[in-house]
């Protein structure tokens, strides 16, 4: 296993780098977009909450690969060509954002209504109350399920392999087919994924303990 890594370290490194980059981008944007739709779903306005609901149901119930293929193959036919890396990252972001939206919405709705009423009657606007009182409490509550979503996101970034995204999985695939040393190649790939996911899991646990 070591010799595969030593002989091909540049390939693995670039795959590792792309996987990490895609994951960071998708994690950041899916958290922002997901939280946005979560808040939108709690609105009184039926049109806005319905729109948020539709978004979430749409991307939660289509396979990640289909969403990604849409951006890789269909999108360029009507607009402009985008790289496999971009298509995969966009697909992963939209897909994950729907799960994060569900998680964050559940967190918001489990905060006692009295917190919002206390804040509003104290003179805070809806958004001031959301930002300072509701969301901080909701996020602490949903750290464990969010941690799961983050780990899933990193594993799901292997969808890049299907659209030539040059991620860890893609590089592993191409090495395996060139060298025929499939066992050792995929072992290295697996270990490299663990190097990303394990510290993240550990960090989320740490955060959970610190904040509760």
């Amino acid at each position, binding site marked *: 296993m070591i010799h595969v890594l030593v002989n091909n370290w540049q390939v693995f490194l670039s795959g590792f780098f792309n996987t990490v980059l895609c994951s960071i981008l998708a994690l950041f944007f899916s958290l922002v977009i997901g939280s946005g739709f979560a808040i939108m779903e709690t609105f009184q306005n039926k049109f806005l909450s319905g729109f948020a609901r539709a978004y979430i149901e749409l991307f939660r119930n289509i396979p990640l690969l289909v969403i990604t293929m849409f951006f890789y193959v269909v999108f360029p036919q009507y607009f402009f060509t985008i790289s496999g890396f971009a298509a995969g990252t966009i697909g992963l972001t939209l897909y994950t954002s729907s799960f994060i939206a569900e998680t964050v919405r559940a967190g918001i709705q489990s905060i006692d209504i*009295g917190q919002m*009423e*206390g*804040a*509003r009657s*104290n*003179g805070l*606007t809806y958004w*001031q109350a959301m930002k300072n*009182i509701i969301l901080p409490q909701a996020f602490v509550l949903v750290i464990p399920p969010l941690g799961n979503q983050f780990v899933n996101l990193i594993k799901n970034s292997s969808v890049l392999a299907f659209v030539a995204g040059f991620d860890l999985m893609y590089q592993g695939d191409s090495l395996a087919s060139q060298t025929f040393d499939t066992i050792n190649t995929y072992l290295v790939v697996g270990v490299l994924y663990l190097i990303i996911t394990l510290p993240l899991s550990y960090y989320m646990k740490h955060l959970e303990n610190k904040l509760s």
Partner: protein
Amino acid sequence: MSMIKFKNVEKYYGEYHALNNINLEVNKGEVVVVLGPSGSGKSTLIRTINGLEDFSSGQLVVNGFDLADKKTDINKIRKDVGMVFQHFNLYDNKTVLENIMLAPRLVLKRDEKENKETALEFLDMVGLKDKINAKPSQLSGGQKQRVAIARSLAMKPKVMLFDEPTSALDPEMIDDVLNVMKKIAQTTDMTMVVVTHEMGFAREVADRVVFIDQGTIIEDDTAEEFYNNPKEERARKFLSKIIVHK
């Protein structure tokens, strides 16, 4: 001078008629106690005053603002109308000091040094200056309620609303909270609307007692007159029940 004025206010929850032709005027500096059976509409009534509940028809003017007017900015009203709840509703993620300083900072843009001084002043008034760094979860019910009162007072409101502030408290804590409320009533010109069944409080500081049943105001009288000489049968029945309970 009129601070709160209900005129023919009606409120429905779906089919349910929660407030029935409410006419009520509270003048500046007045202390009004509201009582009535459970489910009679006391919370609904008091919560319409700061817009936590809307109403179906009629007129309600608070501190010069017309609540029926869609263009009225509700936050302008709330700036001057504090509210204390049965279940405290302190910010669970903030310390006692931050609970009190948050709204003056965000809403009034009060200077940070002055904000802290004001907060400490009101914490001192409610006897909890030593708890500034505690989280709400570390306080007893009576302490939470006194922090909630300090939080509202720090906004320097013109009106304070209290919705059964002592109903969720252990008996030995009730007086601590009532004493703070009495102090506000006696030493400031705060307009107060207090939903409570505490007769001692009503007799000592209330200018008027309003009795409500099934969404209708049945009696509106001085405390002495109401407790000694209730005019309506329903009020008499209600009083006999709460007095037996004491």
